[in-house]
């Protein structure tokens, strides 16, 4: 766990990287999210203070885009594709199995903070349907029987 102090330095660095440009807010939030895996409240307040942008404006942006999460996420983010092709090929079954094996619901994080489970729309590789992305790795043509084996690798 990073301390609050370490957090502030990182946020500062990220803002510096964009030269404090207010129009780069989305890019800044993306970088912050990459660093902490979600958007911590303290980080948003810190951005607001340092860039002199009202917190309401930042909160508006952070809640508008689905890519941003205000809830703490686990070490590995599981994204189950529920786009049309994956849906037809049984994405719902994969989601069910994930929920059962991890004992969490979609949108939640496991108690040991290892996995977060999310549903996404189309990862852009429909020929591999049904597809699941875990921490950036694509798992193509997945069946629910393979789920436990794959989860063990993380």
């Amino acid at each position, binding site marked *: 766990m990073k301390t609050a102090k370490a957090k502030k330095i990182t946020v500062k660095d990220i803002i510096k990287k964009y030269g404090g440009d207010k129009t780069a807010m989305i890019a800044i939030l993306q970088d912050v999210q990459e660093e902490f895996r979600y958007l911590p409240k303290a980080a*948003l307040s810190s951005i607001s203070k340092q860039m002199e942008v009202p917190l*309401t404006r930042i909160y508006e942006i952070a*809640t508008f885009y689905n890519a941003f999460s205000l809830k703490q996420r686990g070490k590995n983010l599981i994204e189950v594709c529920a786009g049309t092709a994956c849906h037809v090929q049984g994405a719902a079954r994969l989601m069910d199995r994930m929920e059962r094996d991890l004992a969490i619901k979609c949108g939640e994080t496991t108690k040991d903070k290892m996995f977060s489970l999310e549903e996404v729309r189309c990862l852009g590789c429909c020929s591999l349907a049904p597809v699941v992305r875990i921490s950036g790795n694509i798992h193509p043509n997945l069946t629910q029987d393979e789920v436990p084996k794959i989860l063990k690798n993380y």
Partner: protein
Amino acid sequence: MVSFIIDGKKVEAEAGANVLQVARKYGIVIPTLCCHESVAPSGACRLCVVEVKKGKRTRIVTSCLYPVDEGIVVETKTDRVLNVRRLVMQLLMARCPESEVLKDMAKEMGIEPQPAFHPDTDKGKCVLCRLCVKACEDVVGASAIGLSGRGKNKKVGAPFMEDSKTCIGCGACAYICPTEHIIMESTDSKRKIWGRTFKMQPCDKCGRYFAPVDQLKFISDKTGTPMTELAVCMSCK
């Protein structure tokens, strides 16, 4: 100056003015919710739609945003306009079934709720017109509230839906809200809004409670006027 026709009447207006402004000047009634003189128009409520004929094309536009132009023909009460307005009103009523303001407005316009539109139960009286947010940001300068989320989850509130830390309790949002969604509870010495209770300042001369202490501090910080000067109410000044 440009001249154009509105409801068959030939009118003149300053270039850059909006159709709604001109119509009101000539006594033509167009219903609106999100139009307020202190805030720039945004076309959010869409009740102010009118038909504008420019060249060969006739289209439905929001009159609060449409700039007047030489030779356009504006109709504010055609069947097409009234149909669009009825639908907008019915959708608003389905979103905010308990809003008395909307009910009264609909009654005046002769509009019944559409039974096929299932009423929402979780939206309160908010029509998401953004007037409060803009008043807080542009007029007051506090930026204490904003809209968050999107689509059906969009709602107005302070960041993280917590008690607003930057709110100064001025009540501008409650005052400007067209549908009475934002509630401000006031007693003599206290005022409650956005989950916070504000202490009111009594006037140094007459003793009447007239403004939240936080608001006076905010004004003092912004203008450099000392608090002692601000602690006198408008009628004693």
